[in-house]
């Protein structure tokens, strides 16, 4: 499982290494958005791959929206 997580961490690190010099010169909001998206993505990635009972949005939404489907 740690190996799988490493895929994400390495990808995020590559993005950070490539972009951090440019992002530093942009307004702060860019830095915050980048970090929030990278960390948020890692949390979702870990949750969807490592927790046994994952709550899948499509399954959950499907249950909620089924009564609205006309057939």
């Amino acid at each position, binding site marked *: 499982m740690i190996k799988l997580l490493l895929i994400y961490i390495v990808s995020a690190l590559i993005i950070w290494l490539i972009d951090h010099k440019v992002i530093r010169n942009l*307004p702060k909001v860019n830095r915050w958005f980048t970090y929030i998206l990278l960390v948020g*993505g890692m949390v*979702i990635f870990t949750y*969807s791959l490592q927790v046994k009972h994952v709550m899948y*949005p*499509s399954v959950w*939404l499907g249950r909620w929206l089924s009564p609205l489907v006309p057939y």
Partner: protein
Amino acid sequence: MQKITPRQIVLLGVTYVINLTMVNIPSQIVNRASQHGYLSYLLAGALVLLMLFFLTRSSYRFPGKDLFQSLTARFPFIGRAIVLLYILFFFMILVRDIRIMTDFTNVILLPVTPILMISLCISATVIYIARGGARTVLGITELYGPIMIIVVLIMPVIALRDLDFNLMKPFFYVNWKGVTEGGWLSVSYLGQLLVLPFIFSSKDYKFKYGLYSMLIALGVLTILILMAIMLLGVPVSGRMMYPSYELVRQMRVTDFLDRFDLIVVALWYPAVLLNIAISLYIVCYGLKNVIPTVSGKMMAAPLGLFAYSCAFWFYQNSIELFEFNRQWTVIALFFIVVLPLLIFAIHRPSKARIE
């Protein structure tokens, strides 16, 4: 940005609609509408065109601006909320498309390669295309858009002697309930065409370009579904996961090219990557309009990686991805019908500006 030509707009619309629609819904449509599956596309296409007309009219009220720009400028709060909703919509399309392509590649092309690596490769390519901005996206569209259209137009010529027109029988009996159900499934995919007035300013974009896009897209999708029915038959294509791919696999160009599918997939795959990149570009562009200090270009990579994670979280498996098409239309109709009507009703220049 360079001057945008009508040809680029039309091709972008076609590319954004056809490439994943031709993979993900034909089997479900044939299952419901049988030999008249093409009518489902036409039904959905008519509704989308009507909504596109309303959005285009709204866009014309603000000359030189696209809808993302004019909504955020005219209504600082509600406008931003609507743009954020559309960003969410296109983000969900982005996530869905990444997952569709990952599953397709895993099932058909690379069954041994881990699904996470396939998805990562797709996401990385998409990020690189989207980072190039509108210029790159439009450039690749001009290259791969016509190629895909030409390939689909050539296919009936190649398969002509193998087509069994008897499989279209009974031709004059139309199961309208099934056709409507097929239309329900396809409207969310064809509705992606509504993106045009959001990213192209009213100076460049005219309704007729959207109309041409839709007509070409409908033509391509109709050819493919008719060929699938006449080559594979309704029972077989209705039970297959990817009938369009099977259709291409059945084709042989005389004796020297019996794997025609390899050529078509080699041409179609970059077009699909472009399709996904368009979604990512739209999300970045929308975000830039909501928060002007955000750099759309620099958000492409983090957003792409975030979408990569979500692609595994949103859908349990590839069957769920297909099944969710039914409920996805409920969400999509909000963005394809409700919000365009709302925009058409409220989105007008302020009185002070008119005076």
